[in-house]
């Protein structure tokens, strides 16, 4: 057997007396993929960063971390790894420079890396600033950096979250090609499909400790450890109560969007992202918006949330026109339509404790007393698995998944009539995802739920995770290049897709196919 390129031995990272990672050991072999899996907040990112020699501020570290040569890194939220003042091509060019070669040759390598990272139009991407790229595009640029660098070890923290099924497929293929080139990959992921496909070895973390470790086949298919048991099985529950009848509960739909055309830049002449798009969200229903990365899903959600102002068309909230900009919306409007950001980390103020920020929703939008709001926020956060201890830290000290849930709670405290969720499960492990989905499903029914108004909350779920769509959505709209190519009731869409694009999306998700086809083998 070849010598390991990276070795972690009895790593312990402690902050303020609390161990984030405790006694973790594993080795990484060239050309092999080692996956770190485990619930959100279990210490995956912390371990991954340790491989890069980076630790939280004020951390006490013991144990050894050995890495042969530099490691490539695909961070969990790629936006932060991109320089806001430089075009996407800037760092790529510098990485290519290290590899030597003439100008033209270097440019060729950069383009090849971008293509390899599933960005088929490199020229387009190279010229853009990071904020002009969609979440998925940003992530692939970062992957391209890692590919281009030729580092022997690649630490990939959730490389497939935020990617649509088709793209994810390709990213997986690409990572496999990387492995084939002899590069070792440390994969930090919740996505067990991906882990199953790539990893030869799995380390399951729980509360910073190794709860299980061994070959993938053994850990994921034949679980021997009681505590690892719920990991692979915890798929999203398919709705059993059956979707309510369309328009069954009231006359006006909760939200209607008519002829939305949205663009970037000051004028309509700027890049147009949405073309004359119309959608209806029935009251108490859940609409999943799926589509390829960069197709305009976030833009649509941001238009409705009032955060993106450059659009024409109409949005009607229960028949009433909704002011275009969030600045023009009254408290009622704000409370009625809430948005959960795709990049949860960036949406928090890095200086204040998360709990304090979350509680403000109740104070501002529902006029709650600050102390009550705190209590309420805390109980809601605990409900999604974020303890008081965690919540009272600033966002920099929370894991990606924790922040995602905190962002959801922040929106829910408004008791919104319409909730727009943008990829809110991408950073969650199956268990947490299940909980969140259950929480969302409960919202639509209204009664008995602390987070929704009497008439219940209608949901727009933007997601790449078709299993989420399948489990949660009553209706599905498929968006491609800013247009709705197909929409309809979820069951019908998933079982009998008509549009070729929908079909391709579904084919790219093997596990989902099973879920939809019913619990067969």
């Amino acid at each position: 057997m070849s010598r390991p390129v990276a070795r972690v031995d009895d790593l312990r990272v402690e902050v303020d007396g609390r161990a984030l990672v405790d006694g973790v050991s594993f080795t990484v072999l060239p050309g092999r993929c080692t996956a770190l899996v485990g619930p959100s907040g279990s210490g995956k990112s912390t371990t991954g960063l340790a491989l890069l020699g980076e630790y939280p501020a004020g951390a006490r570290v013991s144990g050894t971390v050995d890495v042969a040569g530099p490691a490539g890194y695909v961070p969990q939220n790629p936006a932060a790894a991109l320089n806001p003042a430089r075009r996407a091509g800037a760092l790529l060019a510098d990485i290519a420079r290290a590899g030597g070669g003439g100008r033209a040759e270097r440019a060729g390598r950069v383009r090849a890396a971008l293509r390899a990272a599933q960005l088929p139009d490199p020229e387009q991407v190279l010229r853009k600033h990071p904020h002009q790229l969609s979440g998925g595009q940003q992530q692939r640029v970062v992957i391209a950096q890692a590919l281009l660098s030729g580092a022997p070890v690649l630490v990939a923290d959730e490389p497939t979250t935020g990617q649509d099924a088709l793209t994810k497929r390709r990213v997986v293929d690409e990572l496999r090609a990387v492995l084939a080139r002899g590069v070792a990959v440390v994969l930090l992921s919740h996505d067990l499909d991906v882990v199953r496909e790539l990893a030869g070895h799995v380390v399951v973390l729980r509360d910073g400790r190794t709860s299980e470790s061994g070959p993938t086949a053994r850990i994921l298919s034949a679980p021997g450890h009681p505590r690892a048991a719920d990991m692979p099985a915890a798929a999203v529950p398919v709705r059993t109560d059956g979707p309510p009848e369309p328009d069954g509960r009231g006359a006006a739909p909760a939200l209607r969007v008519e002829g939305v055309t949205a663009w970037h830049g000051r004028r309509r002449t700027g890049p147009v992202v949405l073309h004359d798009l119309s959608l209806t969200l029935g009251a108490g229903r859940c609409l999943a918006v799926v589509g390829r990365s960069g197709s305009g899903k976030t833009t649509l959600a941001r238009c409705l949330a009032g955060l993106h102002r450059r659009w024409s068309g109409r949005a009607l909230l229960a028949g009433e026109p909704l002011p275009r900009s969030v600045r023009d919306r009254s408290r009622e409007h704000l409370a009625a339509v809430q948005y959960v950001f795709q990049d949860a980390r960036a949406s928090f103020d890095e200086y204040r404790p998360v709990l304090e920020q979350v509680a403000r929703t109740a104070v501002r939008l529902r006029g709650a007393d600050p102390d009550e709001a705190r209590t309420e926020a805390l109980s809601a956060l605990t409900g999604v698995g974020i303890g008081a201890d965690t919540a009272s830290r600033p966002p920099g000290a929370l894991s990606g998944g924790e922040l995602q849930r905190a962002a959801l709670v922040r929106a829910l405290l408004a008791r919104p009539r319409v909730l727009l969720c943008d990829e809110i499960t991408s950073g969650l492990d199956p268990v947490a995802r299940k909980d969140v989905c259950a929480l969302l499903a409960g919202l639509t029914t209204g009664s008995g739920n602390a987070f929704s108004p009497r008439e219940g909350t209608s949901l727009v779920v933007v997601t790449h995770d078709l299993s989420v769509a399948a489990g949660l959505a009553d209706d599905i709209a498929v968006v491609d290049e800013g247009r709705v190519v197909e929409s309809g009731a979820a069951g019908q869409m998933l079982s009998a897709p008509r549009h070729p694009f929908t079909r391709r999306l579904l084919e790219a998700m093997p596990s989902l196919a099973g879920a939809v086809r019913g619990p067969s083998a």
Partner: protein
Amino acid sequence: MTDRRSWLLRRLVLGVAQTAGVVVLVFALTEALPGDAAVALAGDAPDPERVERIREVMGLDRPVAERFGEWAAGLVRGDLGVSLVSGRPVTEYLAAGFGPTVLLAGLTMALLVPVAVGLGVLAARREGGRADRVISTVTLGVYAVPEFALGVLLTVVFALWLGWLPPTAVGYGSGLLGHPAVLVLPVLVLLARPVCSVSRLVRAGMIDAMASSYTAQARRYGVAESRIRWTHALPNAAAPAVQQLARTVDWLLGGVVVVEALFVIPGLGTVLMDAVAARDIPVVQGLAVVFGLVTVAVNVGADLVTHDLAPRTGVSA
């Protein structure tokens, strides 16, 4: 991009309006000042009869609106008017002072950018480190010494004691370029202050930028530290510094008075001071127009650069 072009156009139209605003403001202020050109000319022999006479000769007895109207009409035709005191065209005054001032300002800017950025970046390399402490303390110390004091100090040391450089530019007239030694001390004095303010802003921005995750990412891929510093971190740190630079240009054009006086360089600053003292409104106005135009142009440039450095903010200036 068309976006950018239309923004630029709008900004330029605004700039013209701005310049008009400057002209009106300056006219109003000069009008509001106690005394006028006649009183200023009469000096310590303010024989009322003579003052009245001078006023008539200069046409100051006409209503304010009429004088302003006439002057503005001339401006539209590209005519800046004539000096109240000497009757010579204002353009002659501008032409006389323009060369030396532009030379001083240009040289200062050419040196300022590399020096200030260099020092700022160097200080930010290690916050609180030795280089940082030395640079911060020294630049701050220099910054706190008023120009006239610094000018006197440098002149005494380098011109009078060591005799390396000429103490003033007396007698070189407009041929300053032919005697580069004459320019060394004035430019040094002019540099002292902006170098400090710009380099401190660069330093502050650099510290944040160097601690950011995008520079960390670049570092992981083995990009040379110097390259990270200059091409990745600096653009993020530069936006406020660029704005400060734009202000420096204004200050250089209008505020070289002290240096011009100390080193006897007959530039626009001197013309301005003389014109204000003599209440020679057409000359003050002409200078205001020129300064206004330059300032507007420089600020448009700075806004453009700032936008390029912080693209997310949109081209709204």
